[in-house]
């Protein structure tokens, strides 16, 4: 049985400086890496016989408008044999950030990457069919970004002032 320290040590052995920001929160270790090395890190985590992270639990995006790297793709991995979870984060910057697609390693990444593109506008290179999945195809904005409001600003039947919302402002805070 391996522990969080084993995972961190093995990653540091093989990738050294490229694994940054190790953090242990509520039992799950999380590490960050950058765009050029994420694919090799993931391949190592999946194919290494001791670590054996054969299951991609989740893939999602987060938007931090006040940070240097505005977007982050968060991968949750799970090793069935060792019964341990790991979180890998990939910070990205820019208005239309690019990340490599994980489909060659785990087929389940297909729709999860489409959902992240749909909500945040993160483009996954190598994805066979990167188009919107949950929103209408004609939508031009990426709705989960923090600057867009929850409500539909174009509707006429609800008076925003009655709800305490400024109708002219697109909300840029939480």
């Amino acid at each position, binding site marked *: 049985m391996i522990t969080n320290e084993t995972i961190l040590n093995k990653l540091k052995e093989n990738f050294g400086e490229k694994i940054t920001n190790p953090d242990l929160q509520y039992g799950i270790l999380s590490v960050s890496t950058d765009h050029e090395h994420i694919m090799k890190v993931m391949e190592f985590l999946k194919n290494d016989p001791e670590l054996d992270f054969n299951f991609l639990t989740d893939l999602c995006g987060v938007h931090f408008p006040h940070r240097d790297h505005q977007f982050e793709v968060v991968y949750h991995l799970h090793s069935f044999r060792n019964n341990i979870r790991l979180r890998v984060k990939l910070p990205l910057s820019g208005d239309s950030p690019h990340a490599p697609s994980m489909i060659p390693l785990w087929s389940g990444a297909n729709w999860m990457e489409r959902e992240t593109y749909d909500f945040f506008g993160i483009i996954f290179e190598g994805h066979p069919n990167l188009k919107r999945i*949950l929103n*209408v195809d004609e939508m031009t904005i990426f*709705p989960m970004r923090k600057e*867009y409001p*929850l*409500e*539909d600003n174009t509707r006429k*039947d*609800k008076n925003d002032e009655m709800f305490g919302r400024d109708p002219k402002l697109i909300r840029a805070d939480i």
Partner: protein
Amino acid sequence: METLIETPPRKVNIADPPEGHTGEGYFATRLDKVIGLARKNSIWPLPFATSCCGIEFMATMASHYDFARFGSERVSFSPRQADLLMVMGTIAKKMGPILKQVYEQMAEPRWVVAVGACASSGGIFDTYSVLQGIDQIIPVDVYVPGCPPRPEQIIDGLMKIQDLVHNESLRRRNSPEYKELLASYGIKTVDN
């Protein structure tokens, strides 16, 4: 075999006849009363179930709150053979054109009941992707509030539809007010 559920035998109610003149071998009454009586007791619904209210509809259709007692024994999934469009569940903006297409395919006379808070007004989802009530795109006859409404409430909505069906004039669907109503929603009919 032992029975699992014990039910006492019940009396069966038959619908009352309308007012009219009886005689030896004949019964004379108004045509629209007879047609209203026949229509109201044999409404074939089209369950347009999208989310949680659809599960409450399944419970209404099952044997505990039997829906078939009201004449809706045969639920039709084809719009051409249905009388009542029951929209149950949230309608997102992506689904709106499909709902309109289903409504346009139904033959007159047709009625619409919006079951649940989401179909009536958008419900708890005041978001960019949810249509805030189906009456933005199709005309609605009865709204059944609730999240989800209990089966008794859905049956109450159906009984209100039965009242509407029973008392509807035979000329209503050809009247200019009705045509204006459909035109205001942009619904295409056979004539235009």
